[in-house]
């Protein structure tokens, strides 16, 4: 039986990085994700797997260290929270432009600005719709438990290397701070130099005689060359959208009303669904696990037989735009949210639902 350990989501990220053969972590402390680096420093993986852990002088520096490590085909990652991720956005865009794989964890807090340190989902638009300047997508995955935090590190690197693209784990203060049971999977060793040559033949690992030069850059200067590259990215995104959409449904088979919620909000929403079902109201929930690519098709299919769809988020209503796009006017789309680091209760969601649907 796999070992089960009680740990915080943030600790799960760190332990998973060590156990999944990550080569380097570079970061800068910020609440509510400081336990990631604290755990790494306590575990001292440089003495066991040889993983490098370094506290950079700032988030800008950390993301550029990731850029360097990724150029060499290494599995490198960082983590931060909202204001810190803002500082990393330039680097994220450069990595998307240079087609570099990496995993970046954003444990969101209330904003804008320095905001609060309590849980929020206020970075949906920033990360899913952008995450830096230019025409690109991050692959965005949204954990809802400590186990997800553990599992998504490995999944994230898998996606990052398969598509040579930054992957963002979009978590929040609840998932980061909450302790839950985490099941450990077998340890994966760090990749050897030969493994890297095989998995990342594009990496700058030292040119051997006869091999063309590997060039990693996000600068092209020539519009025609840039456009060809942008269109190549577009084909890559189309493939990601076709193959990687992931979502989880809860009691949707006979549902007449649908909630859409991701991350911690989906957990609270699940309790709201249970409460409504006890009242005889057939509610269901779709939790997008990938935020990019977004489960547009499934939300669209489901909306065709719903009386309404509500997006439940810890922000002012960001994902609801995507829900509306998916629903395409087939039924009314509502929104309920809390902001600033405040968290809704299942009862609040039920009240908002009844108000929106004119139910007693």
């Amino acid at each position: 039986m796999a070992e089960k350990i009680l740990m915080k989501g943030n600790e799960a990220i760190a332990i998973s990085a060590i156990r999944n053969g990550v080569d380097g972590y570079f970061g800068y402390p910020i609440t509510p994700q400081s336990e990631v680096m604290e755990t790494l420093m306590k575990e001292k993986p440089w003495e066991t797997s040889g993983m490098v852990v370094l506290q950079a002088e700032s988030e800008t520096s950390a993301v550029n260290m990731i850029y360097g490590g990724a150029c060499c085909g290494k599995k490198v990652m960082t983590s931060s929270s909202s204001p810190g991720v803002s500082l990393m956005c330039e680097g994220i865009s450069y990595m998307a432009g240079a087609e570099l794989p990496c995993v970046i964890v954003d444990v969101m807090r209330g904003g804008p600005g320095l905001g609060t340190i309590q849980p929020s989902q206020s970075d949906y638009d920033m990360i899913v719709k952008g995450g830096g300047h230019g025409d690109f997508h991050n692959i965005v995955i949204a954990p809802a438990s400590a186990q997800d935090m553990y599992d998504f590190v490995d999944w994230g690197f898998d996606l990052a290397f398969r598509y040579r693209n930054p992957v963002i784990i979009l978590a929040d203060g609840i998932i980061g701070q909450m302790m839950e049971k985490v099941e450990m999977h077998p340890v994966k060793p760090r990749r050897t130099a030969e493994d890297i040559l095989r998995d990342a033949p594009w990496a700058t690992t030292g040119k051997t005689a006869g091999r063309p030069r590997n060039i990693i850059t996000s600068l092209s200067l020539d519009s025609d060359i840039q456009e060809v590259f942008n269109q190549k990215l577009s084909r890559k995104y189309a493939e990601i959208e076709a193959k990687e959409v992931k979502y989880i449904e809860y009691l949707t088979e006979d549902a007449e009303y649908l909630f859409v919620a991701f991350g911690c909000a989906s957990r609270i929403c699940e309790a709201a669904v249970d409460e409504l079902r006890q009242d005889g109201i057939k509610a269901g929930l779709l939790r997008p696990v990938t935020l990019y690519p977004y489960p547009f098709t499934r939300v669209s299919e489901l909306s065709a037989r719903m009386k309404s769809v509500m997006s439940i988020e810890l922000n002012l209503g960001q994902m609801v735009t995507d829900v509306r796009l998916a629903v395409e006017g087939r039924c009314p789309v509502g929104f309920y949210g809390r902001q600033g680091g405040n968290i809704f209760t299942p009862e609040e969601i039920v009240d908002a639902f009844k108000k929106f649907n004119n139910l007693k």
Partner: protein
Amino acid sequence: MKEEIIIAGFGGQGVLSMGKVLAYSAIMQDMEVTWMPSYGPEMRGGTANVCVILSDKKIGSPIVTKYDTAIILNQQSMDKFEKTVKAGGLLLYDPSGITRHPERKDITVAQINAIDVAAGVGNSKVYNMAVLGAFLRLRPVVEMENVRKGLKKCIPARYSELISLNEDAIVKGSESVLIINEI
């Protein structure tokens, strides 16, 4: 079985660790658990609380507003959480420092004088384990054998000599509960 518990008191009383030992003990019993602390710009001497949910099934929301049990260790927490106990639930509190005792009649109310218990065991730091013992006496949600296992998981190996001291506090705590209102 599902038990939703709020543990609340001052920072430094071992509120978060008590929740952790309880949660780990439940894992040893193959239960599902969530441990969700209130966190914010807290400071020493400020309030601290943690919501622990133990269940036979997968836990949905880690955020609840009504609790089966409230374990209350200071007056601020009494003011905030007495009203959040579900009817028929349990309120366990340490009377020292409490100026307004609980008034509800629709819940079980019990006291644990954990400072005395900890002093009796010989180390004031096991205060929280005395409270945990009292709780487990009233709500035996986890078997003692699994509490011992959970305790071992929570105490770093270099402090292993403290395990028996903590166990003593749990046992003495369970023997020192005073039931004020029983329903």
